[in-house]
């Protein structure tokens, strides 16, 4: 079953065409990677899907509902979570407090003024459980801005994944990580997105080929190819445009 679909998506920034007739189809339960050279429009595609921008033409469907141009908070409420290429956490709050926001988001705790958040035991328990699952319990009470780079990136991706969203969109979760950190992050993503659908933008081929069930290659704003990792590896167009002589 298709969970996310874009139909004839176009987007331009004051005349500069960034997306050109993008028809993306993400099947429920799969891990779908979007790859492509810098400037191919990967992040813009994310932004158009998650409601940052309204596309100039075309439609986006999530679980069969037309969500074109819907606001990010509405999309989050119907089960779409995303992370950012540029780390975007609550930098002055602790790891625990950051993750608690994701838990509160999942439980729909919003306009609650009459109880102390610390007294909501189920929220605390669940947040601690999440802290443990992402191996950040040692950093539970450290402000996000003081975390090491790798851990901060893990927290960034976890904010999207901890909310128990049906569809998780990760924008370069391993960017700038060391080899060990990347390895750890891949395992983390694998664990946290089990039984969920994930769309991931990545540059690291090892990450993509170890995580993705299907790959879409974006090139100059349009889709060059979609297929299994094997198909993509052997696709001549993709080799010419992007992978080149890369040993994959």
């Amino acid at each position, binding site marked *: 079953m298709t969970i996310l679909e874009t139909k004839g998506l176009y987007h331009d920034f004051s005349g500069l065409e960034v997306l050109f007739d993008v028809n993306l189809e993400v099947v429920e339960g799969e891990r779908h990677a979007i790859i492509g050279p810098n400037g191919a429009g990967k992040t813009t595609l994310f932004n158009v899907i*998650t409601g940052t921008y309204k596309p100039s033409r075309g439609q986006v469907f999530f679980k069969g509902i037309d969500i074109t141009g819907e606001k*990010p908070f509405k999309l989050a*409420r119907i089960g779409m979570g995303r992370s950012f290429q540029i780390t975007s956490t609550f930098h002055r709050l602790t790891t625990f407090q950051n993750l608690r926001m994701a838990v509160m988001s999942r439980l729909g705790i919003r306009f609650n003024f009459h109880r102390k958040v*610390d007294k909501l035991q189920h929220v605390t328990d669940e947040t601690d459980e999440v802290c443990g699952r992402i191996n950040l319990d040692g950093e539970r009470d450290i402000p996000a801005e003081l975390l090491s780079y790798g851990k901060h990136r893990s927290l960034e991706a976890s904010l999207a994944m901890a909310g128990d969203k049906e569809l998780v969109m990760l924008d370069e979760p391993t960017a700038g990580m060391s080899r060990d950190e990347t390895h750890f992050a891949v395992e983390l993503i694998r664990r946290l997105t089990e039984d969920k659908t994930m769309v991931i933008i990545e540059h690291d081929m090892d990450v993509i080929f170890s995580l993705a069930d299907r790959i879409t290659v974006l090139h100059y704003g349009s889709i060059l190819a979609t297929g299994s990792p094997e198909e993509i590896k052997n696709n001549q167009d993709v080799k010419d445009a992007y992978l080149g002589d890369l040993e994959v």
Partner: protein
Amino acid sequence: MYFGAGGFGTAIALTHIQGLPLLVSVLIGFVSAVVLAIILSPIVVRVSGTAFAMLHLAFSQLMFVLVLKLRGITGGEDGVGGFPIPPFSIPGIISIDIMDPLKFYYFAIIVLGISILILWFFTKTPFGQIMVSIRDNPNRVNYMGFRVTLSKAVIYVVAGGFAGIAGSIYALFQNLISAEELSIMACFAPIMITMVGGVGSFFGPILGSGVFAFLEELTSRYTEHVELVQGLILILVILFMPMGLIGIFHIIKEKLFSKPSLQGTMESAS
């Protein structure tokens, strides 16, 4: 502006309604400020940062002029004064005449204490958590499924309401509220106090207002140009203490109570 709304709300109510209880008059001040904030919030909270400050200031000036012009209601430049100050009474239990400055002081302290407690609790609720998250990163809050603009409107209204209580107490103490309390200097004072005390912290502005009140008392003995000293302090704080005066406490706390930091281990290693 909400300070003024609260002050005028209380003063006008006491002038026109005979035998109005004290706490009800304060409540009227609170409600007047809240109503004004609800009316303005849809416009004001859409923007943030400097644009928010400027828009807010513009509305304040509009109110200032309105108060000057609507002489029939607000008394123009003279303001509303000389209204009866009711005693602090809980029917059947106590009744204290707060005309005596010392008793008024205790009354003000109690109102202040209760307000601080309520606001402190407010920051500790789940909504308070969303509030500090918006401070850190409004964009992410939006992507996590919370309505940023609506939340900001709620915060704006609550803040306005408590400014209204402050104005109400002020009007009761002076037995007068006039347009001067809505002037640009009066509008700027809380911003200045917050910047000196510490932006984005709970106790920073409280500390800031204490420091400013103390300074005003002290400098006014020697010079008429109190604002000159205040301005100088504002500049010094902005230049050398970006976290405000409350930042000093954080630094001291870190020095005294922090676990051995990286710096510490490096020193011991060398």
